[in-house]
């Protein structure tokens, strides 16, 4: 390629890199440095190296939060990917009123998380919540205080997240579906493949890059889940829904323990990066490797 084209290439990438450098990378590095300073704000923050990380390793609250988060990430991303694929397959079809269906499917995601979380809190209320009304009708004595039980409260935040963001995964997967040529399906139909076989042997492999993208970005987001817990449960009952990022928030913002709070967030980052790397390794890093033919 001639040098001129190389310059153009850099010119094209540079604005994006500049934005990210100033408003994401620099804050990230700044935070990392902060995590190396004494966890409790004294008169002067003292450099303590990885002292905060050492404390984190021994912090039972953090351990619990981490396990809750991991469970949330695995459960919600799996469900969202499965439902998202289903949604994508549905709205990919051509039928009358597809636009309306598409808009309907996107509604959950278009509702701000803070509002959607309030809505689920409202729906799951033990007395005047719709979920109880639908399940038990007028038998109020059977009504369940969903958010009072530690396990059901955990299930509730997963449910709310899945409801809200499956369509995000669906859109990403839809984009992937659109580049699969129709002939591929026709060929498979001629070969006598059933709908399921067509999906499993043709759609799924060709969809892999899109699925990987969806999985990666959902994982990244799920690891940082915050609004949902903040609004719905405040981490309760008994820290059963306290995800790591909410713990980080409380430490950093409410308690003002800047060093330790940042340490928690940096750890979230490391965990996310590790899980993402694992996904990329397992699912194939085609996207990262592909070069112009």
């Amino acid at each position, binding site marked *: 390629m001639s040098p001129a084209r*190389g310059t*153009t*290439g850099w010119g094209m*990438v540079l*604005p*994006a*890199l500049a*934005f*990210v450098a*100033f*408003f*994401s990378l*620099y*804050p*990230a590095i700044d*935070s990392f440095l902060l995590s190396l300073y004494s966890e409790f704000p004294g008169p002067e923050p003292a450099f303590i190296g990885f002292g905060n990380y050492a404390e984190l390793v021994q912090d039972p609250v953090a351990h619990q939060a981490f396990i809750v988060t991991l469970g949330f990430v695995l459960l919600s991303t799996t469900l969202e990917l499965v439902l998202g694929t*289903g*949604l994508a397959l*549905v709205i990919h079809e051509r039928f009358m009123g*597809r*636009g309306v*269906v598409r*808009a*309907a*499917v*996107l*509604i959950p*995601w*278009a*509702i*701000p*998380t803070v*509002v959607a979380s*309030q*809505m689920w809190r*409202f*729906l799951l209320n033990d007395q*005047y*919540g*719709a979920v*109880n009304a639908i399940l038990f009708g007028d038998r*109020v004595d059977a*009504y369940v205080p969903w958010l009072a039980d530690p396990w059901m409260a955990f299930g509730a935040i997963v449910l709310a997240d899945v*409801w809200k963001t499956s369509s995000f995964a669906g859109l990403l997967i839809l*984009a992937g579906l*659109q*580049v699969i040529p129709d002939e591929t*399906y026709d060929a498979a139909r001629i070969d006598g493949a059933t*709908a399921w076989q067509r999906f499993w042997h043709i759609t799924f492999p060709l969809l892999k890059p899109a699925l990987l*993208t969806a999985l990666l*970005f959902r994982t990244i987001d799920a690891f940082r889940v915050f609004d949902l817990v903040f609004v719905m449960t405040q981490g309760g009952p008994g820290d059963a829904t306290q995800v790591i990022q909410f713990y980080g928030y409380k430490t*950093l913002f409410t308690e003002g323990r800047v060093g330790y*709070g940042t340490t928690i*967030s940096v750890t*979230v980052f490391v965990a996310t*990066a590790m899980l993402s790397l694992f996904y990329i390794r397992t699912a194939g890093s085609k*996207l*990262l490797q592909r*070069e*112009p033919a």
Partner: protein
Amino acid sequence: MTNRPALLGGMLLAVLGSLCPFLWFVLTSFKSQIQVEAIPPTWWPDGSLAFYTSALVEHRLFHYVRNSVVVAGATTIIVLAVATPAAYALARLRLPGKAWILGGLLCVAMFPPIVMAGPVWQILERLGGLNTHWGLVLPYVSLSLPLAVWILTVFFQELPFELEEAARIDGCTTWQTLSKVLLPLATPGLFTAAILTFIYAWNEFFFALLILTNPDQQTLPVGIALFQGEFTMPWGEIAAASVVATLPLIIVVLLFQRGIINGLSAGAVKG
């Protein structure tokens, strides 16, 4: 094309699953205060519009909607303008270390926004960006760029190379190739990225709460969150506000999804 009953079933399930919880909110918004917290819940509302009056007049809902449209719109436009060339270069041009750039973007996207809020707040304070819309747009752009770049990169990679080569022989510069030949073909990708970005900016709460404390600038999520009183939970007003605030989004989605369909048919590039 595939079997109709399954499609119909899936469609119904998708629509019902997505809408039902929200429909409860719609019903709630037309209830009277005492009905909202009735035990057991009542299904059919009185048809009271009190919550709408309260949300629209007392809480100035439209003003928040307008702010959100401005912020989300500006974010989307800037993200597309910045992400498209970057994605094109990453997908098609030979850049040393492009895998690193893509990986790095992903990596940056992993950093929890909560911990970035402090430094971002300080940057904006220096730039005079606190309590301004552009001050919110800058971090939004940065935070939604990685996803947009990824989506568009995947999309550009799927477009046939021949078209680009034809364009180069026809005398297009790299920018012309992108704008005149590839962009029209990448519309599904562009619209997908646009919807994702717009809704991200529309939904974002945390930065908006920190950066905008002046009620004149506050966006919708903050606005609705502030409906909550010290000891009161105005479900009815929140429900009414959500219903009103979702309408522009439905319009945006209806407009954008048309783009996805159009792009789809144009995407049939091969033989």
